[in-house]
Structure formats: structure tokens, C-alpha cells
């Protein structure tokens, strides 16, 4: 059958993310010990993100900035291709990619994480763990990160003037300020003629290259990540970007719907 993929999808079709609300299944707040969490399933690819907020002193050269530390883990339970031990190249490259997306899109401005200039700031440890690897790790990770951060509630912290110590009020929580909502769209390239969206692991192995485009809600490009692979013309790249922008709208609608459904507290 022409133009049809092994799982029956069309070339430009995303995987039906298990129906919970829309196309993508994700649940927020599944991890009770984390300050914010999200579980995302894109077909079989399952990624969970937990965000923990801790306090630390800001760095000397940027006294009004907090820290965001993303870490992507690909444990051996998610796929037979990963061995247990120190993080492999794919995990490290993915961690760097997520750090770049956060920085490029300015989704969280580090100044917002500062509590007291030069003395105290929030550190957000974002742990993204893949539970089942079936391709398209980057899209799922970015989505999980975004959903988890939207779910984060920071306790209010004040510095006691007399003692100089910080006092945390766990009862009073404010949500994290998220300025931009980046969404990643990945494509697999086959010999510079065919481009398919949202590749599964089998498709990724056979592909001759991949491209990941990250866009934000204003249609700006936060990242064009094409780590080698078959060459693409500028026109083909433009097609990818157009598809990524459409995808962004779908995903944003989905996130908003889910947030709205869990917010009445």
C-alpha cells in the first residue's frame, strides 16, 4: 500500500496519544512527592517528568537569577538498546537539547525564580525519565516538561529580617510563571525525499536523519535541531516548520483543556 506506514498511519499523521482528553494522553500531578509532574504518552513512548523546587544561593555573577536543571534519563527498562550505567550519548544530548529549549524559548525567566537578590533563589530540578522508548523522545520530553512546569506550585518564601533565615510557608502556594509554551515536532528523513512526522523507534532506526523543530505560540522558532543525517533543501525545511506550527496549535489547545479541567480546587 502506498504512502502508508507499518502502523497504518499516514506520513504526516501523529500517533494517537491514548485518549484521555484529546489525542495525547497525559496526566498531571501523578507524583505526589514532586512539586509538579506530568506523564505523557505519545503512542507507546512514555515519558514522565518530575519537577522539584529547592532553595539555593544564586551564583555570584548573576545574583538575581535562579536555576533550572533539566536531566533526561534513559534507563535500561525503557528499551533494550540502553544499558544501565552512566548516561549514554543519547541521554546527554537530550538533556542538552532540553536545556537549550528552556533557554532559547525563555519559557521560564530565571529572574522570576529569584526570592531575595544575592541571597536566595529557587532551583528547579526537572527530571525527565523515559519509561518506554518507542521513538520521538524529544517531542515527548518537551511536552512532559511543559506540562509538569505548568503543574508546579511554589511555596511562598520570606526572609526573616531579624534572623536572616528563610521561612517557607507550605500552605501558601503560587503557580510558576510560564511565559512561553514551546512545543517540539520531530521528523524522520529518508534519503532526502521522504519526511515523516513523529517516528516510532523502528522508523528512527531505518531513517537516514532526523529534524526537530521547536516553536512557541508566537510562531517564532526556538530551535531547529538537525543533528547531521541526509541533507535537506531550504524548501523542505520550510515544510517542516509549517507543519510544526500547526502541531503547536493542536498541542496548546490540548494542554489548556487539561489544565482547565484540573484547576478548580
Amino acid at each position, binding site marked *: 500500500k502506498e504512502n502508508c506506514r507499518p502502523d497504518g498511519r499516514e506520513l504526516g499523521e501523529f500517533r494517537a496519544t491514548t485518549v484521555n482528553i484529546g489525542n495525547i494522553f497525559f496526566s498531571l500531578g501523578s507524583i505526589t512527592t514532586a512539586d509538579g509532574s506530568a506523564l505523557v504518552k505519545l503512542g507507546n513512548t512514555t515519558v514522565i517528568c518530575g519537577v522539584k523546587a529547592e532553595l539555593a544561593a544564586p551564583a555570584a555573577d548573576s545574583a538575581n537569577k535562579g536555576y533550572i536543571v533539566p536531566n533526561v534519563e534513559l534507563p535500561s527498562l525503557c528499551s533494550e538498546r540502553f544499558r544501565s550505567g552512566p548516561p549514554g550519548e543519547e541521554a546527554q544530548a537530550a538533556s*542538552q537539547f532540553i536545556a537549550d529549549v528552556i533557554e532559547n524559548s*525563555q519559557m521560564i525567566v530565571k529572574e522570576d525564580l529569584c526570592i531575595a537578590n544575592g541571597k536566595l533563589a529557587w532551583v528547579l530540578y526537572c527530571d525527565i525519565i523515559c519509561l518506554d522508548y518507542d521513538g520521538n523522545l524529544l517531542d515527548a520530553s518537551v511536552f512532559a516538561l511543559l506540562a509538569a512546569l505548568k503543574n508546579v506550585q511554589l511555596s511562598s518564601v520570606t526572609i526573616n529580617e531579624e534572623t536572616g533565615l528563610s521561612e517557607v510557608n507550605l500552605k501558601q502556594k503560587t503557580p510558576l510563571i510560564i511565559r512561553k509554551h514551546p512545543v517540539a515536532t520531530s521528523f524522520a528523513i529518508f534519503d532526502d525525499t521522504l519526511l515523516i512526522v513523529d517516528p516510532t523507534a523502528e522508523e528512527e532506526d531505518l531513517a537516514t536523519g532526523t529534524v526537530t523543530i521547536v516553536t512557541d505560540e508566537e510562531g*517564532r*522558532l526556538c530551535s531547529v535541531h538537525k*543533528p*547531521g543525517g541526509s*541533507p535537506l*533543501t*531550504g524548501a523542505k525545511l*520550510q515544510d517542516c516548520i509549517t507543519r510544526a506550527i500547526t502541531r503547536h496549535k493542536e498541542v496548546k489547545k490540548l494542554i489548556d483543556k487539561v489544565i482547565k479541567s484540573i484547576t478548580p480546587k
Partner: protein
Amino acid sequence: DLPALPVPGDTSVLAGVYGPAEAKLSKELPDRAALEVLLRPKVGLPGVLERSREQLLRQTCEAVVLGVLHPRTAITLVLQVLSDAGSLLSCCLNAACIGLLDAGLPLSSLFCGVTCALDPDGTIILDPTTRQEQEARAVLSFAIDSSERKVLMASTKGSCSIEEMQQCLAAAQRAADTIFQFYRDSVRRRYSKS
């Protein structure tokens, strides 16, 4: 075995290519050469940033090197950063390509690296210095191939609009011509002496 040393401005990277040599059993691939890239920063131990750059470089080289001609071998590319004054990624790409050329490895095409910085008022600066990169609102690096000027690798920092990206890409493709001419001249010079 074979070092190569291109220098845009004051950024310099030394590339050493070793191979095709016998591969370790765990690393060998039955139908093609296994390419490995090691990027060593000037100061400190290689970290996550170097790993991610190594992945970019490795996959770019894999697209170009005809690995099927040397199955079950290993080709190692070691890049040592000697000085960094901006546009480091494209310097590494250029060093890698000249290194592969110098080593005589079979390549389907050449590639070159070009970095563009978009400064706050929208002007495109090619091969920016470290200062220009910091002040820019977006820095885009492309690897352009020599046969049809297609994009082999793209990596961006900061955000920009789609039109700006296309403009940078067009500028990079034009600049690629100058770099390929430089490759030709360097190789000619090297082989005309001996």
C-alpha cells in the same frame, strides 16, 4: 595520523583522523564503518555540551563518509579546541571536513560550517565573535554540503522568526562558496609542495 587546522578569526580547532582501523567487537558494525567523534574542550573535562556537539558532528560526518566501503572498521575523529573566539561549532565542522579530506577517506560530498548571529536590530552577522554571539538574540549554525548547498546540520540558540531563519540560511549557503574555495586552495597548496 593526520591533523588539520582551519582558523576563522582567532578560533582554532585541531582535528586528528584515525582510521579506518580495526574496531572493537562491541563497536563494530557489520555493514559500515563505525564513526566516533571526540571533542575535547580547551579547559576542563568534556561535559554534556561536548557530548551533544559530538553527536551533531558524528551524524554530520556519517552522512558524508562512505562507510559502506569499509565495513567492520572504526574511524575516529578527535577535535581539540585550541582557542575559542566565537563560531566554535562551525570551526569544528570545517576542521572535521578538512581532516577527513586529508585522511583520504571516501566522501560523498564535502561540507562546511557557517555560523550566523542575528543582532537585536535584525542584521545578520556571519562568523560572529564571542562578544557578538552573546549580544545577539539568536545564533544559528549550519553545515552546508558542497554538491547542492543543502542543509546537513542545523543548530540554533535563541529564538527568531521563520523569515529570519530563511535569510540566515540563504546567507550561509552563499558563504559556503567562499569556504569551499578555501578548502580547494589549502589542499592544492599542500599537495603542490610535495
